[in-house]
């Protein structure tokens, strides 16, 4: 048996899983999105589902909202994570404990985090009650709307809380392998602290930071549960909108749900491509 064949055979189980479950599902979804669903008598494929998705005003509003959620969460998480990693790579007393606490919420499921945000930040949540108790606001309903709000503050808070340690851990590991020698050289040649970070360290940690933040972007763009729990009813994030169509009692709405899911997949692929290109240009200059 040749080496190549061996490698191929060893990859077969993984490929089968991806091929069958992922591409199989994608294929069925695609067929349904073209209005092909023999079980309810739809046998002539057409593009009407896409047409109705693209002529729906809510779809565009949902897209803007979802983009805002994914983009803002990714940028804020990345900035905070890099800052935290810069602090955590130093040696200080109790570093092990701080490091542990920093990574602790990696193990907490997103849903639990969302419920936590709800308990803390809603208008009947802990912060609203404390603020009212201390007389900072007249009644709890004067507390600013941070969940179910049009700017998705609650959703972004949850994502930042959860993704900072994720990006942070990757960036920190990156920094530790690189070490501080390059920066020391730059500093000895007269670079300021900012310059040695911007032109030496940042380009070095960039690949790791980029792939981590792309993962966060793709996840937050396509995730359903957090906007479903913390989001306003209108406009809803794209995945919530797609699920709503999918659970519409009218079977005829299924193709529309599938069309929307396909569009979400395409949109996130395009945006990840643009994001990679643009940020490479900006940082590498």
């Amino acid at each position, binding site marked *: 048996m040749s080496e190549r064949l061996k490698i191929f055979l060893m990859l077969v189980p993984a490929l089968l899983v991806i091929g069958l479950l992922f591409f199989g599902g994608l294929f069925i979804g695609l067929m349904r999105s073209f209005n092909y669903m023999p*079980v309810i008598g739809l046998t002539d494929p057409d593009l009407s589902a896409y047409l109705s998705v693209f002529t729906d005003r809510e779809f565009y509003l949902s897209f803007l909202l979802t983009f805002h959620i994914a983009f803002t969460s990714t940028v804020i998480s990345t900035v905070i994570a890099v800052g935290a990693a810069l602090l955590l790579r130093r040696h200080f007393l109790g570093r092990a404990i701080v490091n542990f606490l920093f990574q602790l919420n990696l193990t907490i499921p997103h849903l639990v985090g969302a419920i936590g945000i709800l308990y803390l930040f809603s208008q009947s949540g802990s912060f609203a009650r404390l603020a009212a108790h201390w007389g900072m606001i007249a009644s709890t309903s004067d507390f600013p709307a941070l969940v179910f709000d049009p700017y998705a503050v609650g959703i972004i808070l949850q994502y930042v809380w959860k993704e900072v340690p994720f990006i942070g851990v990757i960036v920190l590991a990156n920094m530790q392998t690189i070490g501080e020698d390059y920066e020391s050289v730059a500093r000895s040649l007269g670079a300021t602290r900012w310059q040695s970070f911007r032109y030496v360290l940042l380009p070095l940690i960039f690949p790791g930071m980029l792939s981590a933040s792309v993962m966060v972007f793709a996840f937050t763009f396509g995730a359903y549960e957090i906007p479903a729990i913390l989001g306003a009813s209108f406009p809803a994030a794209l995945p919530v909108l797609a699920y709503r169509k999918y659970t519409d009692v009218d079977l005829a709405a299924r193709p529309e749900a599938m069309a929307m899911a396909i569009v979400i997949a395409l949109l996130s692929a395009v945006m990840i491509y643009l994001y990679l290109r643009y940020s490479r240009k900006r940082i590498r200059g």
Partner: protein
Amino acid sequence: MKNQINAGLLACALVLAPIAAHADTADGSSLIGKSWDEVVSLAKGGEVNWFLWGGSDNINQYVTEFIGGILKDDFDIKLNRVGLSDTVEAVNIVLGEKESGVLDKGSVDMIWINGENFRTMKQGGLAFCGYTETLPNNKLVDWSNPAIANDFGVPVEGCEVPWSKAQFAFAYDTARTNSPPKSIPEIIDWAKANPGKFTYPAPPDFNGSVFVRHVFYYAAGGVDNLLGDFDQAKYDEVAAKTWEILNDLEPSLWREGKTYPASISALEQLYANSEVDLTFNYEPAGVGLNIENGVFPPTTQGYGLTDGTIGNTNYTIIPFNSPNKAAAMVLQNVLLSGQAQYQKALPDVWGAAAAIDVSRTSDDIQAKFASLNPHPNVAPAAELAKAALPELQASWISAIEKGWQENVGN
């Protein structure tokens, strides 16, 4: 070599033996007309996967412990309760199975269902039908009652079995509100006079949708004009009025109507946290359970409206591709029994109204029903029934939900 094959076959047979102990009863037509004893013996040793809304601990406990216990002890059937947040999820599973050619090994054996989802099951040919006469306890059901023989206007035609009756009711906190609004126009005025203290879940949430239908009935000047098949002209006229009323009300709602709670649980949370002052539910008994569980303040009182509230019957259905139809039929028969319906009606168990005609049960069960002590804070079913409104046909309901999303919820 041959010996090895034989040994292999034997091993296979031994491994498969425990699984094959109960019969595969995917072929429903062969069960229809069989004697009940035969059905029971076919079901023995098997299991049944029941998909139902899982948002209430009390209901879950009743199903798993009480009903599951009877199935285990009396029939040697294992009941697997599968909780859903929305019944349509189970319908989607059956539909997906039909599409992919799973015609006799489906994963869903029974669904708690009614209304639009039942229409979908019929529309897609997803229901097992025509067997209800085979269930001995079917004689306890009053099929001559149109509210039982029709599920949201869709004829049942032996495709499902009634389980409970429910009627929409409101609830308020006597400690916070002196006199609650007692009709749809009063609720609208009250909400305007108390800005931020009222809201309703956004349709297609089941309960939010029912609230919108009450306003729709009010805008139509009564439900009588709306019964029967969907009528586009009539719909357009009434819908325009309804959206006007609701849009006019919107600035006075919780969060100025910029967002609506996503589900009935979210509304109940808002009420429990005093963010809003009124709540409602299609299952009026929920008030009692929420008080007992410490979710609602004990000063919460349920009540009906003077201009009536909508009532319905809910059912259980067996999908066409269930491989455990005999076990599912045994389960349905247990659910219909006087004992199970009585247990379900106990206020500290669930408090749900019986779907069977109690006068057809044994004297013993009738006496038990007569001795029921409803929870004092729950709107009494007899009181609600005095002003009961029918449900519309499912096509009306979809149109109203869609119309709300396009005209009010954005």
